Every structure is written in structure tokens, then in C-alpha cells.
């Protein structure tokens, strides 16, 4: 019994007990008062019916009847014309208790049905919004797929000529020569352009994911070696999970790319002296065991507006960013049957959580 029910029952008991005491202790030569008490009994019965339905209404009416009958029999004696009205009142208590209880139960049932249909409607509306979002994403990606062929051909071919020409010219100059430096600029910038194109292609037409037995902790360590250099340059402490993690079915190379993207973002968002922590946890719930990886930083945090768009292709807040890193990352995680979520407080830091499903027993055997 919860606290609310207890108070309700206590209130009913006090109410009925009080009226009964008034009946027993009020002298019989004040019949008007007794008439009032007699009617007052209806209040707890109706309340009980409202609160506890049919059972409450009838139970309360029965309790009232049991308390009231001795008063009639012992104190009033047998004065039939007067008593008949009082006995009928007892019948009325039970009728009122039953009918009010039935009605309130019916109302409660309807309220529940309404509530349920409201919930169904709400979840249907959410599904529609989600599907719309997915459709929009799919549409963007299919446009990306078509674009990718054009980008690959029309940009990489001339890039090849530019880079080759620069390399041929470079041969005629010595390092330190002004023109040699200019040629270096050409080479550096065409390499940068090529990186953008490559990231774009990776997003637009991902290589099919090759799922094999994947040692998650090894992949994390491999990524950490690269990330530690960046962390050291920025004087940021990088903390990794200790111990081992179970294997999963996955594409190690792609996961490394995803983890590196998340880690570099965290490092870039964190000021000097800050800290980036990676934590791992195996969670078990029936039928959906998995590994949760959390990447926490003590950076500047992300605003709600950025949070909504940060996984969109080409959305970036970084100078010189391609806006493809996180959208590729999400694709990789989702291709592994996982999910990625962001929590952030402006000024306090950001936490990226990656959930990856664990290899099931059956899958391990396969």
C-alpha cells in the first residue's frame, strides 16, 4: 500500500468513526442531529467509491452499516415506522456505494484507454518524425553517392596533374630556394584537397564493412598511440580504460577510424591542462548485451543548436574542418549495429557515448 492510499483509508476511518461516535453519544431526544449524521455517512461512502472503485464503495457502505446497526438496535429499540426509514437508509448506503463505485471504475477504465491511445499516438508521431529524419538522411546520402562519382573524377584527375607537375618542377630547385617553397605550397595544398575528397568519398560510398572477430581494446590502444601525440602537444591528459574488454564482431580498421575521429574532436575541444577520459563498461540486459564506451572531455561543451546538427555531413565548427568526421563515425557505429549519443554542458565538457553490441554466444561459434 502506498502512502497516498494509506492516508485515504485513514481519512475514511476517521470520518466514519467520527460520525459513528456522534451517533452513539448524541442524546436520542435530538433526532434532528441524528438525521444529519445519518446523511453524513454518504460522504465517506462516495469518497471510498471514487478512490477505490466498486470494492471501496461497497466495503465502506458495509462498514458504515455494521457500525450503524448496533446504534439502531441497541439505542433506538424497535420503533418500526421511524426505524423503517433508517433501515432503508442502510440499504441506500450500499446502493450508493455500489453504483458510485461502478461508475467511477468505468470512468477510470475510460481514462486509462484514453491515456493509452494518447501514448500510442505520441509514439506514432515520434516514429513518423524519426522516419522522416531517416528519409532525409537517406536522400542526402543518395545524392552524395551520385555526387561522389563526379567529385572523384572531376577533382582527382586535375589534382593528379597538379601534384605531378609540382613534383616535376620541384626537381629543378633546391630546398631553401623561394620557388622551391612555392612548389611545396602547391604540394601541401593539393594533398589537403585530396584529403577532403577522400573523406567525402568514404562517406558517400563506404567500403563494405568486413565483420570479423575484433579485439576492441587493441583497437583502442592503437588509436591511443596516435591520439597521445596530439594530447601531448596540447598538454592534455589522456586516460584510457584499464584491463581487457570482450571481443566483438566488427571491422577493426573502421572502428579505429571512428574512435580516432571522436578522440581528436575531444582533444580539439579541450583547452591546455584539460583532460580526456575514455571509459569502457560491459552492460548486460536480457538479449542485448553490449559494450559502452564513453569519451569525456573537459572542453567548452556544445550548444543545443550544434548538438542537433553535429552528425550532419559537411557541418563543422572547426576552421579547416571538412564536416565529415562525425557523420562518418556515426555511419561506422551504426553499421556495427551500435549507436552514438552526445551529452554536453556548455562550459563543463562533452561526453560521447558509443554503444556496441557484444558477440552473442551463437555468433562466437559461427
Amino acid at each position, binding site marked *: 500500500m502506498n502512502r497516498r492510499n494509506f492516508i485515504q483509508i485513514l481519512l475514511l476511518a476517521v470520518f466514519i468513526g467520527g460520525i459513528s461516535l456522534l451517533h452513539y453519544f448524541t442524546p436520542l431526544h435530538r433526532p434532528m442531529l441524528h438525521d444529519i449524521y445519518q446523511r453524513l455517512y454518504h460522504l465517506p461512502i462516495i469518497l471510498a467509491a471514487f478512490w477505490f472503485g466498486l470494492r471501496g464503495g461497497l466495503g465502506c457502505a458495509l462498514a458504515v452499516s455494521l457500525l450503524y446497526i448496533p446504534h439502531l438496535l441497541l439505542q433506538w429499540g424497535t420503533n418500526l415506522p421511524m426505524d423503517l426509514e433508517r433501515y432503508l437508509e442502510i440499504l441506500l448506503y450500499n446502493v450508493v456505494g455500489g453504483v458510485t463505485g461502478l461508475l467511477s471504475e468505468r470512468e477510470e477504465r475510460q481514462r486509462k484507454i484514453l491515456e493509452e491511445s494518447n501514448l500510442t499516438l505520441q509514439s506514432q508521431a515520434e516514429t513518423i518524425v524519426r522516419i522522416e529524419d531517416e528519409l532525409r538522411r537517406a536522400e542526402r546520402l543518395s545524392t552524395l553517392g551520385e555526387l561522389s562519382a563526379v567529385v572523384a*573524377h572531376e*577533382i*582527382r584527375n586535375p*589534382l*593528379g596533374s597538379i601534384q*605531378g607537375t609540382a*613534383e*616535376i618542377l620541384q626537381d629543378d630547385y633546391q630546398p631553401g630556394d623561394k620557388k622551391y617553397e612555392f612548389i611545396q605550397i602547391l604540394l601541401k595544398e*593539393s594533398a589537403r584537397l585530396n584529403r577532403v575528397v577522400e573523406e567525402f568519398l568514404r562517406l558517400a560510398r563506404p567500403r563494405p564493412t568486413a565483420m570479423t572477430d575484433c579485439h576492441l581494446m587493441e583497437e583502442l590502444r592503437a588509436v591511443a598511440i596516435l591520439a597521445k601525440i596530439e594530447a601531448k602537444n596540447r598538454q592534455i591528459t589522456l586516460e584510457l580504460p584499464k584491463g581487457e574488454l570482450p571481443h566483438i564482431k566488427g571491422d577493426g580498421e573502421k572502428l579505429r577510424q571512428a574512435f580516432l575521429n571522436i578522440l581528436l574532436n575531444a582533444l580539439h575541444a579541450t583547452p591546455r591542462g584539460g583532460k580526456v577520459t575514455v571509459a569502457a563498461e560491459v552492460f548486460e540486459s536480457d538479449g542485448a548485451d553490449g559494450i559502452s564506451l564513453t569519451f569525456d572531455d573537459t572542453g567548452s561543451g556544445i550548444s543545443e543548436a550544434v548538438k542537433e546538427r553535429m552528425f550532419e555531413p559537411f557541418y563543422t565548427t572547426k576552421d579547416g574542418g571538412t564536416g565529415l568526421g562525425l557523420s562518418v563515425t556515426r555511419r561506422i557505429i551504426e553499421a556495427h549495429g551500435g549507436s552514438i549519443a552526445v551529452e554536453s554542458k556548455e562550459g563543463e565538457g562533452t561526453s560521447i557515448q558509443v554503444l556496441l553490441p557484444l558477440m552473442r554466444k551463437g555468433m562466437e561459434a559461427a
Partner: protein
Amino acid sequence: MKNATILAVDDNADCLQVVLQACEMFGAFIRSASSGEEALYLLEGDQFSLLLTDLEMPGMDGLQLASQAKAIHPELRIVMMTGNLPPEKEPLLSKAGIDGVMEKPFTLQKLKKILGFEE
């Protein structure tokens, strides 16, 4: 390999020019064609040790050229240069008898290595 003749094929004149110039720097003998058809004509007349061809070309593309070239000279090494290699085309490469792929943009170092001129 040093005295072997290379045939470079690309519809893009600039790309072809760069490859020609680079090969001359390496000291390779090289001839060029601007289409698959022209390349086949040259292959029928002369002996080449390596065919360096673009993938996407108007008319006969790199894949068609490769399989026809292999039919004429089964021992010919073929390297594909391409800026656009969709994943679905990858399995077709070995089927057409292609020995190597260079994705554009490539460094001259890589070209040198694939041509076998690296010291």
C-alpha cells in the same frame, strides 16, 4: 625493366603530359595514346612491357582496353590509373587482367615504384 617500353593511355592531355615527363625523368621509354582505340592500334603494331591506362575514358574504357590488350599480349603488365574507383568495380579489375592500381593523385615516387624504376 630499364629499356622496356611503356604505353600510357589517358584521355586527359594534362595527365598524360605529366606521366610522359615523369617517365622521361626516370629514363623510361614511353609512348602515349589518348584513347583506348589508339592504344590497341599501337599494341597491335609494337611490343610493350607495360600498359599504364586510365579507367574512365570516352569510347573504350580502361577495363575493355585491358582485356583486349591481354588477348593480344598475355604477358603484358597492366596498371590502372584512376581518380574514381567505385568499390563495386574493384572485383572487375583482376578479372580484366589488371596487375596494379594507382589512385590519382599519385606521387611520382609511387609511379616510379610501380614502373619498377625504384633503386
